[in-house]
């Protein structure tokens, strides 16, 4: 531990620590050294008193001001106005789409029941918690292992993803909002499963795009959260462990978008990425 020794008359050195002393931010040992210097130096004691006075005067002067009484009511009104506005149009459209697809799925199931009942049953049992597969990698890798706080160069991502999957980085960059950037792209392993993992960051949050090979699994239709306008394909969704998980699939791969965004924002991000990511994954041979 470094203890600062303020030799007598070393006022310049001590002044650099005066504010920290005033705010009780120094180590006990350093505080003792400051006190020892102050006892023998009236100039520094005066400087300390001066800084204490400035801080107090500043606080008193600024805190004298308060918000106009009408402002609180204005804010309440704007919140009520926003509340009364109800759900945005796109959410209503999404809700309508979900209802339509649910009706469609029921119709399909009724039609297929006579021919594929056994296959259906296998898919449901294997896919019941399939959205957890993506969630686990986000929690293990982006959050617990701290990869969300790292920034890889493009060369590092190319090396870690390999030529097969590096193309994902470019197409994701094209589709994400301007306040997001791809900070990590690598292959990782969680719970004995291999993943291709991209971490996207905005000033507010970190989000994962997780891809893994299918292991005989598929999402279950009761987890459909939205329908892609472009392809009519479903996006599956669930809220787990205080995170939002959205999933989509190709013949051989499962893909997940996991974040702490709201359900609608996370779904929107998944919907923005899904068409290109699905095309990319469909071209890969397993």
């Amino acid at each position, binding site marked *: 531990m470094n203890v600062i020794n303020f030799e007598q008359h070393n*006022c*310049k050195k001590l*002044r650099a620590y005066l*504010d920290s002393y005033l705010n009780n931010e120094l180590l006990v040992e350093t505080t003792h050294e400051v006190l020892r210097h102050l006892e023998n130096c009236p*100039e520094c004691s*005066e*400087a300390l008193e*001066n*800084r204490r*006075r*400035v*801080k107090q*005067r*500043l*606080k*008193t*002067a*600024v*805190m*004298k*001001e*308060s*918000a*106009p009484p009408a*402002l*609180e009511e*204005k*804010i*309440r009104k*704007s*919140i*009520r106005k*926003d*509340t009364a506005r*109800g759900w945005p149009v796109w959410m209503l459209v999404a809700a309508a789409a979900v209802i339509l697809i649910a009706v469609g799925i029921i119709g399909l199931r009724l039609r297929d029941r006579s021919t594929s009942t056994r296959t259906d049953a296998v898919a449901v049992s294997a896919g019941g918690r399939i959205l957890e597969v993506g969630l686990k990698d986000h929690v293990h890798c982006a959050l617990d292992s701290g990869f969300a706080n790292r920034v890889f160069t493009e060369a590092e991502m190319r090396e870690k993803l390999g030529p097969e999957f590096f193309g994902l980085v470019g197409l994701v960059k094209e589709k994400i909002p301007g306040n997001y950037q791809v900070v990590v792209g690598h292959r990782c392993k969680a719970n004995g499963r291999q993943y291709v993992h991209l971490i996207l960051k905005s*000033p*507010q*949050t970190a989000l994962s795009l997780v891809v893994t090979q299918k292991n005989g699994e598929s999402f279950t239709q009761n987890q459909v959260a939205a329908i892609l306008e472009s392809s009519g394909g479903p996006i599956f969704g669930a809220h787990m462990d205080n995170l939002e998980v959205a999933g989509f699939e190709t013949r051989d791969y499962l893909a997940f978008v996991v974040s*702490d*965004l*709201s359900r609608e924002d996370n779904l929107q991000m998944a919907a923005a990425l899904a068409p290109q990511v699905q095309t990319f994954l469909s071209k890969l041979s397993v």
Partner: protein
Amino acid sequence: MFGRSAKAEEFESAALPYLNDLFRTALRLTRDRGEAEDLVQEAYLQAWKSFHRFAPGTNCRAWLFKILFHVIQHHRRKWFKMRLVNDEDERIEETISYEPPVSPTLSDEDVLAAVEKIPPHYREVVLLADVEELSYKEAAAALDIPLGTVMSRLNRGRKLLRQELAEFASGYGINQKEGGRGA
């Protein structure tokens, strides 16, 4: 709809107690009551819209300051005629060597006028740390700058404030006797 109203009430009771804190900070940064009101109102509306992302049990006040500064950032160019911070750093390093005493006879208006003469980058850190008493970490998060930058700006901001206050005092003929002692 009932759910949203209940949520709005929850938001109002969690966030509105900090209205004065946000307003006076915005006021000291804009120097204009109308502008400060608009910024604070916008910050509250944005906070409400992202309230579902606020983690209960975390510091609501620090979260609101972060949103306020995000809003301010968007409006900043309109009303800040800022010099490059690095240039300012140089100027301060060159000119501050003497620690002038601050007269107790200065009025609150003098103190506020002195605060407003400090460049915005320093002023906002001094306001957050020394008036609103946010931790360095909270101030760094609110301003979206590194912790080290908070500390260096705070150090320089405090020095500037002392200098401005002393200049006010000498303008009134106070503190004329002190010489240029090194500090």
